[in-house]
């Protein structure tokens, strides 16, 4: 089983190494959270798989055929780094050239994300929200477990004093850095998605080191669950506000007198909504997995 985790880790690392773009922030963030989630669920199932459960011959045949077909397909593709490839032709030059005049945000990824393709992002946020709902309903726990978990789960790693002290120092910095990423997304790499995940990672570190009880006192699970919905509502609410002010849905130009200021405000609010949803969903998922562990440990 461990091999799986490490392949996951290094696969995520490889993304970071190869291309040098804004998307990497995302990837590095993914490395942390997805590893933690994998571990949390490994805690719930058997850690070791049985040996010799493996039918490689059929699979090898299938993937050889697929691979041959795929490589045959690439022969018609444009070269790596070709500026005349079809992918660079249609809407992209407009995004790059007009973004500064229309939106006034130097980071084109943010402007595409939040303004040009705002519908897409609203959809993605809803998908994340729905996934969070799914995890919540799959891993239901009784309120008794929740209450008991406050007392039953002591702060783990009590022996690691240095670690706890250093973590106490680091966690506020992590949270502040998440806010920086959130609000600096217009000018540098960053934005709601990354900030949400970093914030959630900080909270998860807090939970891991100081126990569920302490962390639940700081971040109430009920409030967090409400916040998942609040983020999506905030996003959609900005769109509705635009409609009420006479524009199209998610057309931020009408939010202020000056279209560029309107765009700034709109992007800021929308990114905040995304960040709140992502952070709340991630924290909720982690709480759910931890509660489930408590249930396994003490109620069976």
């Amino acid at each position, binding site marked *: 089983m461990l091999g799986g985790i490490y392949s996951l880790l290094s696969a995520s690392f490889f993304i970071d190494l190869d291309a040098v773009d804004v998307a990497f922030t*995302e990837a590095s963030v*993914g490395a942390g959270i997805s590893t933690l989630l994998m571990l949390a669920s490994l805690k719930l199932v058997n850690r070791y798989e049985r040996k010799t459960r493996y039918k490689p011959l059929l699979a090898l045949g299938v993937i050889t055929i697929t691979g041959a077909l795929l490589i045959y397909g690439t022969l018609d593709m444009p*070269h790596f780094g070709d*500026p005349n490839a079809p992918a660079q032709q249609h809407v992209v030059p407009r995004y790059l050239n007009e973004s500064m005049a229309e939106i006034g945000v130097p980071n084109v990824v943010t402007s595409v994300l939040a303004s040009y393709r705002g519908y897409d992002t609203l959809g*993605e946020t809803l998908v994340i929200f729905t996934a969070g709902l799914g995890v919540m309903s*799959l891993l239901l726990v009784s309120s008794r477990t929740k209450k008991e978990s406050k007392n039953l789960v002591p702060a783990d790693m009590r022996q690691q004093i240095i670690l706890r002290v250093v973590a106490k120092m680091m966690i506020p910095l992590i949270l502040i850095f998440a806010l920086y990423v959130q609000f600096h997304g217009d000018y540098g790499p960053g934005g709601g998605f990354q900030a949400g995940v970093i914030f959630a990672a900080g909270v998860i570190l807090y939970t891991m080191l100081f126990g569920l009880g302490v962390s639940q006192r700081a971040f109430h699970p009920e409030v967090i669950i409400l916040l998942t919905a609040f983020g999506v509502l905030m996003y959609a609410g900005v769109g509705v506000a635009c409609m009420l002010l006479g524009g199209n849905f998610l057309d931020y130009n009408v939010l202020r007198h000056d279209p560029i200021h309107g765009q700034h405000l709109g992007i800021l609010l929308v990114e905040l909504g995304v960040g709140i949803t992502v952070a709340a969903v991630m924290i909720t998922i982690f709480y759910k997995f931890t509660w489930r562990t408590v249930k396994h440990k003490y109620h069976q």
Partner: protein
Amino acid sequence: MNILGLYNYWIVIILILIGFFIVIAHENLIKKLVGLTIFQTAVFFFYISVGKIKGATAPILDDRWQLYSNPLAHCLILTAIVVGISTTALGLALVVRIQEAYGSIEEDEIQTQDTQDQLECQLEAYGPRKQFLTKRI
């Protein structure tokens, strides 16, 4: 030169095949999820490499640069990564439930248990008819 310019696709294909192989060949559900994640990263890779332009830089506008990579691909992948994590979490939650229901996360064990359950149900419904059982198995 003509063919070597396509090397990014080949790396992507190798990664895709590794992920695909893990999904097909392993019975363990968590390993299957890991395979899916590798597959996913390969697709992310593909998009980013399509969006890359030689000599270009990250799409954060600045006076010193003229050529930027494709911001659209970055934007799509950025959302896809976070969505991918949350769907993976959903899958993991399903696996946890399966473990609780069946006591195992190996696919073949789950299937044998399922067929056994089916047989038992049919036994209850129709009574122990011998030829029925043998025909089914």
